[in-house]
């Protein structure tokens, strides 16, 4: 690999000086790699890959998760590592570039020989790395809420699936707030499209008429919300309680909420419940126009529990900034990491197959004072919290599910996936087993 790179470099530069520099650099790199692996072998470390974008559009969200993994590794090492071995982080930057995610994943597994990878944010990046993880049989921990409809042997989904976020939020609005008319607003990509499809089917199953559902999609980073907000206002002025279920992606949210406030729509008239607005996003904007609007997650920074207090304290110490907030994907990363560490201890090895087996049924405390358990479909049990946004950018819980909810890999409300289940235990060992036909299609996504 190295020598071929070198040839390419020679051919490309064509200058003697450059060639020499190239050779020197390659030599130095080779030497350092050799030296490094020698040291690594001597100390016998476990390598943890971190695959989060540190530049490009997604850096806004993913940088924090990289820091969270680094903090967890640091803590684990201070507590004596795993099985007496030190953990070593290998951080790469896929730069918000989806094909680059696959390349970097391959680099982490093949070249850097990592034992596990924590990473990805967007669904498209996950879809891009999935074949790599399956081909090379390595493990990925994916910490973000997503649209479901997937279960891979090699991926553990520690974020929420729609039945752990969207569906309970709609239930809350329907039963507690008495909402009769629904606006499903989202950014035009796979997560909102799938989530809204599920929600539409769910609402219709509950007897909501199609004329009481308005679905609206906007492009990424949409900033001119005037006519859409005016439409929502019109839709909501028909005398029935109206709510907006928002799957609008991060950046487009600020102008959306500002426009709502400017056109005089308050949270009491038409509440907006969002699935992508968390503490981190709120810290980047003036929260005043958002007060009273809602967010549905499985963790809020404002939750009062000992585990959460410790987590926030160590996060502030690690990041050296008392103003930084914590959010749901950070909790998902925390749970994923703790589970992996426990599973490795249990399996006595970091080999993917053994850890996969050990992972199912592992329980660790979550940060809201409950227990998270890894289910056979590689999804977690989570409590669902509905909170109202406060003027300081924090979210306070106003309602929560009495028990934890088991994450669904395949939605019960979509025609194509109703009959599918996922169970990675023997003897089924299948990500999409059709209970009607009794067949496992073998394709996991």
């Amino acid at each position, binding site marked *: 690999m190295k020598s071929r790179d070198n040839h390419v470099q020679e051919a490309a530069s064509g200058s003697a000086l450059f060639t020499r520099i190239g050779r020197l650099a390659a030599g130095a790199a080779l030497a350092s790699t050799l030296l490094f692996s020698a040291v690594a072998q001597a100390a016998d470390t476990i390598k943890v890959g971190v695959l989060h974008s540190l530049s490009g*559009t997604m850096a806004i969200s993913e940088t924090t998760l990289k820091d969270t993994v680094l903090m967890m590794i640091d803590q684990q090492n201070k507590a004596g590592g795993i099985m007496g071995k030190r953990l070593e982080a290998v951080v790469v930057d896929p730069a918000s570039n989806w094909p680059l995610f696959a390349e970097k994943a391959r680099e982490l597994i093949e070249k850097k020989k990592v034992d596990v990878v924590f990473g990805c944010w967007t669904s498209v990046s996950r879809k891009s790395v999935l074949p790599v993880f399956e081909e090379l049989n390595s493990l990925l921990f994916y910490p973000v809420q997503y649209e479901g409809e997937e279960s891979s042997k090699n991926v553990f989904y520690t974020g929420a699936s729609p039945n752990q976020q969207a569906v309970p939020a709609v239930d809350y609005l329907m039963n507690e707030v008495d909402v009769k008319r629904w606006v499903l607003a989202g950014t035009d990509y796979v997560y909102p499209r799938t989530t809204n499809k599920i929600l539409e089917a769910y609402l219709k199953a509950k007897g909501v008429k199609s004329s009481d559902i308005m679905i609206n999609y906007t492009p990424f980073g949409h900033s001119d919300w005037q*006519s859409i907000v005016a439409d929502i206002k019109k839709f909501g*002025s028909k005398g029935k309680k109206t709510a907006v279920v928002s799957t609008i992606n991060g950046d487009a949210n600020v102008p959306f909420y500002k426009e709502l406030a400017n056109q005089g729509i308050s*949270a009491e008239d038409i509440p907006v419940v969002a699935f992508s607005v968390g503490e981190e996003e709120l810290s980047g904007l003036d929260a005043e126009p958002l007060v009273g609007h809602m967010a549905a997650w499985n963790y809020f920074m404002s939750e009062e529990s000992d585990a959460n207090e410790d987590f926030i304290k160590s996060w502030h110490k690690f990041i050296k900034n008392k103003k930084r907030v914590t959010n749901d994907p950070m909790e998902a990363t925390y749970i994923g990491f703790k589970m992996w560490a426990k599973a490795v201890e249990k399996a006595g090895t970091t080999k993917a197959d053994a850890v996969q087996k050990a992972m199912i049924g592992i329980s660790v405390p979550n940060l809201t004072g409950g227990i998270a358990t890894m289910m056979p479909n590689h999804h977690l049990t989570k409590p669902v919290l509905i909170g109202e946004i406060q003027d300081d950018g924090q979210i306070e819980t106003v309602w929560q599910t009495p028990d934890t909810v088991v994450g669904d890999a395949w939605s019960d409300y979509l025609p194509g996936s109703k009959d599918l289940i996922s169970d990675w235990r023997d003897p089924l060992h299948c990500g999409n087993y059709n209970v009607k036909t009794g067949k496992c299609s073998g394709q996991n996504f």
Partner: protein
Amino acid sequence: MTRLSFPACTVLALITCVLLALLWPPSPANANQPDDRFETVVSGLSVKNFKKKSIAVERLVSSGDPRTVPVLQAMLKGQLFYIKSGKRMVYGSATDDGYRVTTVVGGEVLGEMGKRAIKKVSVNNRIRKQLRSAIARLSLADPDPEVRLDAARELLRNLTPEAAELVRSAVVDEPRDKVRAVLETGLAILNLDSGDQAEQLAAIASLDGSLVPEARNRLSLLVEETDDETLRSAALASLKGIESTLRWNRTAETVFFGISLGSVLLLAAIGLSITFGVMGVINMAHGELIMLGAYTTYVVQLLMPNHIGLSVLVAIPAAFCVSGLFGIVIERGIIRFLYGRPLETLLATFGISLILQQLVRTIFSPLNRAVSTPPWMSGSLEINGALSLTYNRLYIIVFSLMAFLFLLVILKRTALGLQVRAVTQNRQMARAMGVRTGRVDALTFGLGSGIAGVAGVALSQLTNVGPNLGQTYIIDSFMVVVFGGVGNLWGTLVAAMSLGVANKLAEPWAGAVLAKILILVFIILFIQRRPRGLFPQKGRSAEH
């Protein structure tokens, strides 16, 4: 008049004293009683459970104490706290590292307290709604007519049976026409359900042309439910009148939305119409110069946190200078070596845009930064019940036109403008006439970049201030400049406005995604027919 003798004077004084004493509120011993009761009722608000809190609010409202309204208002604004030890209710206003605290009962100033010593009385949407309607009910008899007007409007939005009684009694005593009109609308809406046909018909007649959404809802409900033919046809006619007024208002609203989108496009594109249009430089870093302007606004606000309104005004010249200087550096450092090589310029400026993005990511973190909106820029100007124009958009329309005029004056009325036009028309000849073309290039590029920075100030009030701000606007900017005709400021204005209005007209039936695609397709087709845009540059300069 004879002068009163001394003793008579004393007697008079005595009588006054007695009278005063009789009229004065009860003596302190008696006053303690309601004070205590009020205090217990108020401290009931400190419960955590929202259902219990709601009951506590109801109890406070029904206590009838005149001090209730300020408490409810403070609660609504998040200024009501309780001291953790002892649960004493206080008003708090935020200071640098805590709150300045005053007791609710007695108004005793307790000085500053730390954030940990007191806890905010939190509210949720349900309680917020309850508070608003309670405040409205209690302030319907307020001496200030403005307060009464707000109260009447609030009641109209939520006509509960208890509010109905209040409206009925208040409408009789109301001296102001404006307030009474609102109350009468409310009364008419209530009378729609009265069951008495004459009264119902009168109510329908008085609701004709009313733009209150509640009136329309009740009327259409009446149409659906009533068995009385005369009532139904009267209500239908009234509804028809309302619908046609609404349609007009909606058209006006759409045009306003279009113009406001157009003004944003104009702001983003006008700097580019100088650098690209006049100088012919394909500047892919234009968006990042806008972003720098927005970040300047953020920094200015950090420097003057207590003057948000002023900071936006200060940010305008500051952003002009920052982005302008960056522009000059870019021109002198890189672009000047690439004149006449458009492809290389494009690549180099694209590189600069990535560098600038990563620069702000490193300095300000990849997270978006919060820029506050001054109070005079939030809210909306209400034209009538169905049409209101948001203030921030209004200001931005005015602002973009001012920026346009500013540029126009510079190009047409100043020495620099003359030189710029001379250089763009014939560089060799201009140099022969003694124009320092290098300096003019730098200044022109700086001017275009500075205007981009000013656009950033305006955009910081509408959208996110983050590293990706510029990317969102670069495509739109090029689109506007090319459509309007390269090198023509008026073309840019017309193009921005027409694209804005076209986009907003298409959006309601095509959706936001498709509307944008349609506009792009239209421009591609248009450029095929007229490659030089709407207003092509005439004369020799166009031929090189």
